[in-house]
């Protein structure tokens, strides 16, 4: 893997070999307000970097920037919700879940506040190191009672969630994909459903259970593995909470081996909730767990980091091939 350079702040990552959409969150939020007329968007000095300026330009009196103050961001949103508004907040996931955790838990989730937190830079989607990479955010938010937790895969799903979030009761934590976001799901046929996992393919040798952008990687890896004689299918779990326990158990029962994949540490995120679900259903399968190791990650270019920590499609394919003892070269 050639070494690269950490991107400048706000510089957009290029998307190769796949269609992409720019700022799908903003499009979804604008569509939501055109329909509902009750959305207020707040950010904490990261408006440009969380794709909210198109919303501000379209609805200038429905936008507040509170400055670098995540506690104010969340409490002000909680106050807006108490006067009948649907409050969309944006900041980076690292700041939302570490700095403002008490406020998301008590000022929002505890009273069922209509606050939707869209949290940028999930996992290894930024090169700015441990301070900016939200690698344990799903675990922190999943443990909060009455909190809905979502990790979308692509531009299609991101836009749909931004459009529908107001219809979800209570407080929502959703990872935000910003900038140029790959289009993996066909917008004409894909429909995000809260708490419902989506199956792709019917291969039974390997069952990938994935969330967030790892689903894109697993779909690509499954295609490569097919050329190596391994038949795989993918179950995309965008909603981490409430989790589709039955769907996951049914899926796992239909395959020989399971591979979980998440853009998150292996503590408390997708892998943990999958293991819970399978144990409850008394399903025991050989399992490979793909995720971020239990340590803070350094700065670097995004492709470099994702490759180093095993989150690219090629690394997923090779990890599975190694695990199965088949030769990865056959796919080349």
């Amino acid at each position: 893997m050639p070494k690269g350079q950490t991107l400048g702040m706000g510089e957009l990552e290029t998307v190769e070999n796949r269609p992409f959409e720019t700022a799908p969150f903003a499009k979804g939020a604008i569509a939501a307000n055109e329909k509902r007329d009750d959305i207020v968007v707040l950010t904490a000095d990261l408006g440009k970097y969380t794709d909210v300026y198109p919303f501000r330009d379209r609805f200038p009196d429905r936008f507040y920037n509170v400055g670098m103050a995540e506690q104010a961001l969340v409490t002000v949103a909680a106050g807006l919700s108490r006067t009948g508004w649907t409050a969309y907040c944006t900041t980076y996931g690292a700041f939302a879940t570490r700095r403002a955790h008490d406020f998301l838990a008590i000022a929002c989730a505890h009273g069922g506040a209509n606050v939707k937190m869209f949290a940028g830079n999930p996992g290894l989607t930024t090169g700015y190191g441990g301070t900016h990479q939200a690698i344990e955010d799903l675990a922190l938010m999943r443990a909060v009672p009455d909190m809905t937790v979502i990790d979308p895969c692509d531009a299609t799903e991101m836009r749909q969630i931004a459009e529908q979030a107001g219809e979800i009761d209570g407080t929502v934590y959703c990872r935000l994909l910003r900038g140029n976001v790959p289009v993996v799901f066909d917008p004409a046929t894909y429909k995000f459903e809260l708490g419902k996992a989506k199956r792709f393919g019917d291969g039974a040798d390997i069952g990938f259970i994935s969330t967030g952008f790892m689903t894109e990687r697993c779909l690509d890896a499954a295609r490569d593995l097919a050329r190596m004689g391994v038949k795989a299918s993918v179950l995309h779990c965008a909603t981490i909470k409430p989790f589709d326990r039955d769907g996951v158990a049914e899926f796992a029962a239909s395959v020989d081996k399971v591979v979980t994949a998440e853009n998150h540490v292996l503590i408390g995120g997708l892998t943990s909730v999958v293991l819970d679900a399978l144990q409850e259903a008394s399903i025991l399968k050989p399992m490979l767990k793909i995720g971020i190791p239990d340590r803070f990650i350094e700065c670097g270019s995004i492709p470099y980091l994702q490759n180093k920590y095993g989150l690219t499609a090629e690394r997923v394919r090779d990890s599975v091939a190694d695990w199965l003892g088949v030769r990865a070269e056959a796919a080349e």
Partner: protein
Amino acid sequence: MTPALTNDTLSFAFLKEKAHQLRRNMLVQAVGKGQGYLGQGLGLAEFFSVLYFHELKYDPQDPHAKNRDRFYMSTGHYSIALWAVLAEIGYIPKDMLPTYGADESPLEMSTIEGRVPGVEMTGGSLGHGLGIAVGAALGLRLKGSQSRVFVETSDGELQEGSTWEAATAAAAFKCDNLVAFLDCNGIQADGMLVVPIEPVADKWRAFGWDVFEIDGNSLEQLVGAMQWARATRGKPKMVVMRTKPGKGIARLEAREQAHFIRVDADEWDLISRELEQENA
């Protein structure tokens, strides 16, 4: 949708009687428990009397009335005072008061939103109320509502940094429909204020707020502060209230560690008698 008393019929004798009744309602909750946040509640009896029986707009029949003013009590552990006033305005039955702090009673030691009518926020984790009040002030303004937002906070609570984030936001967004009341009672969990907060009025002025400083146990000064808050425009407003924990009961006023009062079983009759003598 009006408070019991308007400016036209302002009666200090009535407000004094209400403050006295609130103290009785607090004692009813505390009796026999041996401990609790009685001191803070007693210190705010005049404030709650003036707020609920002179200034705040609410509907005695409908705690959720859309055009009500909002009151956020940020210091949730003052729940004993809120239960006292919510019982007095009829949102909760008075015969429920003795269940304060008992298992399965909705009258908890700290306020939980959604369990008791009239509780607008969960206040046990300090540093939440002011930010919520700023959001509500923005939300009401966006709706073109004439309702106002009142929020109570305390000197100890100002140690929470989130307070100052909210203070900055309120000034930045010119929330002049927001009136905050700072209960300066000089105590916190570990005793007397453990870090200095003075000059507290200057701090709020420096953050861009209009500030009015009063004796928080004076009905006249509280009514004056309410009139001042109605008359000033353009900035969020802070009423700094100097209050005395345990106010109204001499033996409790004299307690050094009034944050979490402990009372011996044989003291309740004396306390009750002192309260009636003080207000005779």
